[in-house]
C-alpha cells in the first residue's frame, strides 16, 4: 500500500481539499531537509506525512524566518496534523547581556525530554521516529493557543488593572510551569530555550505548556536565570526598560541605579517595585534576585518556586480580604 502513489494522491486530496499536482515525491531520508517542501511526502517508519510547509513564528513559537528543518505535516493515514522536527545539529555562541553562551542544538536531547515528559501536559507532546538514514525525527502534536508574550501584550489595560485582575491567575500557572522546569532538572535534563514565547497557553485548558527543547547551553544554571526573564515579563506586563519607565513616570528619573537592572539584559528594570509601588515587597524581592545588584542568587528552581508560592498565597489572601 505504501508504494501506492494513487493512495497517496487520494489521501492528500481528501485531507487537504486541494488537488494534488504531479506524482508524489516521497523522502525516506530527511538529511537534506532544504529540498523537502510543501506537497512532498516524508516516510517515517512506514508512516507517510504530507508536508504542508515550513514552520514559522506565531504558530509554534519559532522565529518568523522559516525554519526549514521544522515542517508542518499531516499524517496521510490518520489525518492528524503534526510538526515534524527534522535533524539539524548546530553549535553556536551567542552574546546574552555580558556573557557569551555556547548553545548546542540536538534532536537527541529533545527526544530525551519528550520521552521523559510523555503524558505530562505541562510540556508539548510528541514521539520520535527514524528515517531511512537513521535521523531522529520528532513528531510533535500541535498545541492550539497563543504564546505567553503575545497574550500579555494583547491585554489592552493598565498595569494596575492587569496586576489586580489577571496577574494572580498568571502567577499561579507560571508557578506550575516553573515546577515543570524543576522536574526536568531533577531528572538530569534542561529546557535550554526558556523564553516567553516558548510557553504556549493552550486554548482549551488555558494551561501553560512548554515547547521546544532542542537547545542546551554550557551554563548549567541558564534555565534558572532564564526563569527570571519570564517573571519580569509577567510582573511588568511585558518587558520594562529604564527608558520606558522614565517616559511613563518622569519622577523616577535619577532614582534608578545599576543594581536595579537585569543580569541578562542590562537595560531592563528588574526592580519593578520602583515603577509600580503597589507590587508586594516579597514579590519584588524575588525579582531582585535576578538583578545585577543581587547579593543572594537562587541556587535551585525549587527555591524560586517556594518563594513564588508564598507570594501567590499572599495575593490570594489579599484578594479574599479585599
Amino acid at each position, binding site marked *: 500500500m505504501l508504494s501506492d502513489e494513487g493512495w497517496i494522491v487520494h489521501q492528500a486530496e481528501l485531507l487537504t481539499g486541494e488537488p494534488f499536482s504531479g506524482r508524489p515525491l516521497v523522502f525516506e531520508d530527511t538529511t537534506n531537509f532544504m529540498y523537502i517542501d510543501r506537497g512532498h511526502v516524508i516516510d517515517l517508519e512506514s508512516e507517510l506525512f504530507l508536508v504542508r510547509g515550513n514552520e514559522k513564528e506565531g504558530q509554534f513559537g519559532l*522565529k518568523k524566518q522559516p525554519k526549514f528543518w521544522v515542517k508542518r505535516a499531516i499524517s496521510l493515514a490518520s489525518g492528524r496534523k503534526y510538526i515534524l522536527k527534522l535533524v539539524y545539529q548546530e553549535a553556536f555562541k551567542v552574546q546574552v547581556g555580558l*556573557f557569551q553562551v555556547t548553545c548546542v542544538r540536538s534532536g537527541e536531547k529533545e527526544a530525551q525530554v519528550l520521552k521523559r515528559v510523555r503524558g505530562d501536559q505541562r510540556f508539548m507532546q510528541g514521539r520520535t521516529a527514524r528515517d531511512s538514514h537513521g535521523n531522529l525525527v520528532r513528531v510533535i502534536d500541535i498545541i492550539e493557543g497563543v504564546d505567553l508574550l503575545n497574550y500579555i501584550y494583547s491585554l489592552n489595560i493598565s498595569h494596575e488593572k492587569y496586576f489586580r485582575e489577571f496577574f494572580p491567575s498568571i502567577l499561579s500557572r507560571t508557578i506550575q510551569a516553573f515546577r515543570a522546569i524543576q522536574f526536568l532538572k531533577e531528572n538530569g535534563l534542561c529546557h535550554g530555550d526558556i523564553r516567553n514565547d516558548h510557553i504556549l497557553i493552550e486554548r482549551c485548558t488555558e494551561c501553560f505548556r512548554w515547547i521546544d527543547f532542542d537547545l542546551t547551553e*554550557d551554563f548549567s544554571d541558564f534555565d534558572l536565570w532564564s526563569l527570571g526573564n519570564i517573571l519580569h515579563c509577567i510582573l511588568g506586563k511585558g518587558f520594562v526598560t529604564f*527608558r520606558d519607565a522614565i517616559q511613563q513616570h518622569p519622577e523616577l528619573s535619577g532614582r534608578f541605579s545599576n543594581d536595579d537592572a537585569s543580569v541578562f539584559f542590562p*537595560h531592563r528594570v528588574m526592580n519593578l517595585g520602583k515603577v509600580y509601588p503597589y507590587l508586594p515587597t516579597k514579590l519584588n524581592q524575588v525579582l531582585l534576585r535576578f538583578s545585577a545588584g543581587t547579593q543572594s542568587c537562587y541556587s535551585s528552581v525549587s527555591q524560586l518556586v517556594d518563594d513564588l508560592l508564598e507570594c501567590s498565597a499572599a495575593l490570594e489572601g489579599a484578594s479574599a480580604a479585599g
Partner: protein
Amino acid sequence: MSKRILVVDDEVVVLGAVGKALQKTDCTIDSVTSAEEALDLLRRTSYDLVITDLMMPGVDGLEFMLRARATGSSAQVIMLTGYPTIQTALKAKRLGAFDYVTKPFTKQELVSVVVRALRKGAMGSAEAGSPGTQKPAGDLYFLPEHSWARIEPDKTVRIGMARAFTSTVGGVTEFKLPKENDLLEQGRMCVVVRAEDGVEHHLHSPLSGRVIEVNQLVLRDPGLAVRDPEGTGWLLRLAANHLDRELYNLMLQ
C-alpha cells in the same frame, strides 16, 4: 615593551594549552598550578593580565581575584572555567574580571580576549572615544561591549562596532562582512574583524535580519570603523526581522 601574563590553573594540560595558544603574542608568560603560588608572584612581580581557572582546590578563582586585588595588582583578569554558571560569571564580573571564558576554547577565542584585555589595561580608565567623530541623529541601541544598531527613517537598521569593542581591538586591517541577503541572528557572530596584530575578533550582531547593504567605504578603508565607529564607519544595513521584540534585548545609550 612585552606584556606580562600570569596563568593560574591546577591542570598542567590547560597551562600548556594556554601557553601554546599565546605563543605568538610576544608576551612573557608565567604559569603556576595554585592560587597561593600566583599570589606570591603577584606580590613580587607586576603583571598586565592574569588568566585564572575558576575551580581550583583550596583557593578558587573568585577568592583568588579578591586576594589578588589585595596585593595591589591592577592586572586585568580573565576567568576560565569548564563548569560555567551565570552565578559565578556574575560574581567574576562584579569583581572586575574583563571576561569569563568557558572551556573548551579555541586558540582564536583565547587570543582575541587576551589581546582585548591587554589593550583595555593599557588604556586604563580613560574612555576610548575618538574626538571629532560625528554621531548622526538617532538613538543607538547596544549589544553590550560589541555592536550598536540605529533605526533609520526608512525603518532599516544600520549596525556597527561599539566603541567599547573597537577600543580593545586596536587598528583594523580587514573586515569579513556577510553578503547582501545573508541572514543574521541577534547575538550571533556576524563579522570577523582582523586587527593590525593579525588577531581575528568576532563581532556579534545586535539584531536579526537580512543584510541589504554592506558599507563599501569600510571594506576599502577598514580604519574608518575605528575612527568613526558610530558614523561613517557603520558596517551593515539590515532589514530587521523582529525589531520591536529584539530592541528590548539591547541597551539604549
